[in-house]
C-alpha cells in the first residue's frame, strides 16, 4: 500500500470567529498517511482551532479541508470517522470502561462478538485488560488517559486527533505516556494529529512538527531540524533554550556575516538576513558555546560568571558577556569538572555556523 502524502490536506484555510480577527490565516498543510504530526504553539495560536475544524466541530471560514482526497467541510463530525482524544479525556462517566470502548462500535451496529474482540484488543494495546467493569471515576488519571486513547482507536479510524491529551498528568506519567502513545502509533500506523504547547512532548513523539504562532505555521519540519535549524526567531525562542544578541549586519558573505552589537562585533550564520544594515537577532543554543575551547573557534570572548545553578546532570552558568547578563551556558556534569565560581572571568567560544542570524525581534 503506497502512502498518500496528502492524506489530510488543509487548503488555504482561514478561520475567524467574530469576522474581525483571523484565528487561522491561509493555512496550507499536508499530512501524510501514517504520519505523527504535532501542532505546537502557544495558547491562542490557532492550533486547537485547526484540530476542531478537522474534527468537524468548527467550520472553516474559507478554504477546504480534504481527507483522502475528499472535501469534508460539509460532513458532520459523526460521519467523518475521525477518532479524537480530548484534553480532559471526555470519558463517559456513567459508563464502564467496556461500555465506553463499545460506544463507537455499538453506534456502528457492530456484532456483539466482534465488539468484545475489538474492545479486548484495544484494552490490551494500552495494557488495561481486566479493567472492563470499572467506572472512569475509579481509574487514575493515567489509566483514564489510556482508556481515552483506546476508545479513539477501537473503531479503526483513519486519523486520530489528540488535543493536549497529557496536559493533566504529572511529569513522570506524562513522559511514560509519551512513549506509550508513540509506540502505539508505530505499531498500528494510524495517522495522528497531535496538539500540544509542550515542546519536549512534540520533540519526543512526532515525525514532523508544525509550529503555530499568530494563526500561521511558522515552521514545519522534523524535530531535529526544528531544534537545530529554526527559520525565525519565534521558533528559535519557542523551541528549546536560546541565547540572543540583537544587532545590525555590517558585512555579509555567503555563509558568514558580521553583526555589530552595542559595543562589540560577532560572526554569525546569515539565515534570514540578506544585506548590510539589516537589523537581526542572533540565536545561539547554550550547549553550543564552550568554555576554554580546545579547537579554534571564530567567536572567542571573555565573560564574567554571574550565577552558577546546579541541575544535577548539568550546571547552568549565567554570564555577563558582550554587554548582556542573560547569557546562559550549560556545562555537562563530568568528572573533569571545572571549578566555576561567581565573578570569575572565563573564556567562551562558539562557531559562527551555530550562531544563526534571524529576523529581528
Amino acid at each position, binding site marked *: 500500500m503506497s502512502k498518500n502524502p496528502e492524506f489530510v490536506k488543509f487548503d488555504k484555510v482561514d478561520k475567524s470567529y467574530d469576522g474581525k480577527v483571523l484565528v487561522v490565516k491561509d493555512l496550507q498543510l499536508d499530512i501524510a498517511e501514517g504520519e505523527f504530526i504535532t501542532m505546537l504553539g502557544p495558547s491562542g495560536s490557532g492550533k486547537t482551532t485547526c484540530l476542531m475544524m478537522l474534527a468537524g*466541530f468548527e467550520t472553516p471560514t474559507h478554504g477546504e479541508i480534504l481527507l483522502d482526497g475528499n472535501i469534508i467541510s460539509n460532513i458532520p*463530525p*459523526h460521519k*467523518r470517522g475521525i477518532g479524537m482524544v480530548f484534553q*480532559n479525556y471526555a470519558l*463517559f462517566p*456513567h459508563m464502564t470502561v467496556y461500555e465506553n470502548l463499545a460506544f*463507537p462500535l455499538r*453506534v456502528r451496529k457492530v456484532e456483539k462478538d466482534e465488539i468484545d474482540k475489538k474492545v479486548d484488543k484495544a484494552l490490551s494495546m494500552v495494557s488495561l485488560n481486566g479493567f472492563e467493569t470499572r467506572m472512569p471515576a475509579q481509574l487514575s488519571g493515567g489509566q483514564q488517559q489510556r482508556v481515552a486513547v483506546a476508545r479513539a482507536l477501537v473503531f479503526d479510524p483513519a486519523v486520530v486527533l489528540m488535543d493536549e491529551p497529557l496536559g493533566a498528568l504529572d511529569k513522570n506519567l506524562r513522559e511514560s505516556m509519551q512513549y506509550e502513545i508513540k509506540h502505539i502509533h508505530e505499531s498500528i500506523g494510524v495517522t495522528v494529529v497531535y496538539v500540544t504547547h509542550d515542546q519536549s512532548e512534540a520533540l519526543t513523539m512526532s515525525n514532523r512538527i508544525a509550529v503555530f504562532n499568530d494563526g500561521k505555521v511558522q515552521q514545519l519540519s522534523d524535530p531535529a531540524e526544528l531544534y537545530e535549524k529554526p527559520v525565525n526567531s519565534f521558533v528559535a525562542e519557542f523551541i528549546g533554550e536560546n541565547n540572543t544578541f540583537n544587532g545590525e549586519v555590517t558585512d555579509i558573505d555567503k555563509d558568514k556575516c558580521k553583526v555589530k552589537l552595542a559595543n562589540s562585533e560577532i560572526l554569525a550564520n546569515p539565515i534570514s538576513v540578506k544585506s548590510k544594515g539589516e537589523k537581526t537577532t542572533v540565536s545561539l543554543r547554550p550547549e553550543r558555546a564552550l568554555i576554554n575551547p580546545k579547537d579554534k573557534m571564530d567567536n572567542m570572548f571573555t565573560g564574567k560568571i554571574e550565577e552558577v545553578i546546579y541541575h544535577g546532570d548539568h550546571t547552568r552558568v549565567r554570564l555577563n558577556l558582550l554587554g548582556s547578563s542573560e547569557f546562559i551556558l550549560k556545562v555537562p556534569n563530568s568528572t573533569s569538572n571545572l571549578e566555576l565560581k561567581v565573578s570569575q572571568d572565563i573564556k567562551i567560544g562558539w562557531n559562527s555556523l551555530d550562531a544563526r542570524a534571524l529576523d529581528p525581534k
Partner: protein
Amino acid sequence: MSSEAKQILTTDGIPLEVSLKKAERKNKIKAFLLVAPLLLFLVITYIFPIGEMFTRSIDDKMITNMLPKTFKEMENWDGQELPPEEVFSAFYYDYKALVEKQEHGKLGQRLNKEKNGFNSTTKRLFRNIKRKKIDESASIKEQMMKVHKNWGKVEYWQAIKRTAPPYTLAKYLKGMDMYFAADGSIAQVDEDRRIHRILWLRTLEIALFVTVFCFLMGYPIAHLLATLPMKYSNLLMICVLLPFWTSLLVRTASWMILLQQQGVVNDFFVMIGLVADDSRPEMMYNKVGTYVAMTQILLPFMVLPLYSVMKTISPSLMRAGKSLGGTPFVAFWKVYFPLTIPGIGAGCLLVFILAIGYYITPALVGGASGTLISNQIAYHMKTTLDWSFASAMGLMLLTGVLVIYWIYNKLVGVDNIKLG
C-alpha cells in the same frame, strides 16, 4: 497481619483515638453551635407542630376521661354477652358524676355518633337520676334495663366499649371516605359521598401533570442556560427567575386576567378566528387554569436543579459522543441525558412535592374542579373547625410525600440528587 489491631499511642502515651477525639471536640462544638439556632427553630416550628398534629389527629380522649370507672370494669368483659353488674354500676356512677358536672349531654351526643338511639337512651337515664328513682342498694343492672330497653341490648354496650381507647384512627378513615361500622369493621361511605378520594386522586393527577409540563418546558430552557454564552444566559436566567421576584398573588391574579372568558387570551382567540365569540372556552376556574398557573409558578424549581447539573457536564462529552460516530440524537440520548438524571430527579421531586401541597393558586384559579386536597384541609381548619380531621389529612399528605420520596430513593437513589 494479626486481627488484633494494636492500639496506637501518641508520644505522650495517650491512645491516638482519645487524642483525636479531644482535638476534634472543639470543632464539633463549634459546628453544633453554628447549626443550633436553625435546629432549635426547626424543632419549634416543624418537628413539634407535626407531633402536635399527629396527637390531635388521633386524639379521642373525651369519652375515655368521662367514663373512667366503666372502662376499667369493661376490661374484664368479653364483649360477647350483656356485661355483668359491675359494668352497669360503674357506668351508673360515671354518668351520675357527669350529671353533677352537667356534661352528660356531650356524652350522649358523642355516643349517638357511635350508635343511633344513644341520645334518648341516656336522656331517660338522666331523668331517672334527677328524680332519684334509682335505688343504689339494689341491682343497678336490672333497674337500668327497666329504664330503657336499649340498656339490655349488647350492641349498645359494645358501642361504648369501642370508644374506650384514648386514640382512634377514625379521622384517617374519614380522609379516605371510610368509617368504623358498628361491628368494628371498616366500611366505605356511600358512593355519592366519597369526596375525599376524588380530591386525593385529583391532587395526585394535577401534581403529576404539572411536574411533566414543568419538565418538558424546563429541560430545553435549562440546556440553553447551561450552553449559551454568558451574555445571553444571564438574560435568560433573569427571565426564569422573574417569577420569583413577583408576588405569588400578583402572578396568580394576572393569570386570572389573561385566562378568564373575557380575558386577553380568549379575546385573542376570537380575534384570529380560532373560536366563535359566543363559545369562548373556559380556561379559568377549572383544571386548565390550575395547570397553567401552577406550571408557570413552579417552573423555576425544575429549571434551577437541571441547570446546575447541566452546567457541570463538559461540552467535550457531547463532542466525544459525536466524534465516536454517534448521531447528535444518539450522543444526546446515550451520553447527555443519562448525566442529567440527577437533575431531573431533583427537579421533579421538588416540583411534585410542592405541587401536591399547593394551596393559594388552586384556591384562586381552580374553581370547583381545580381545587386540591390542601384546599380541603384549609376548609376544615377555617370553616368547620374540625382541626383533628385537618391534621389527619395533613399527615396523610405528608406520608404520601414521604412514600414518594422513598420510591424515588429506591429508583434513582437520593444520593444522586443534585440541587447545585
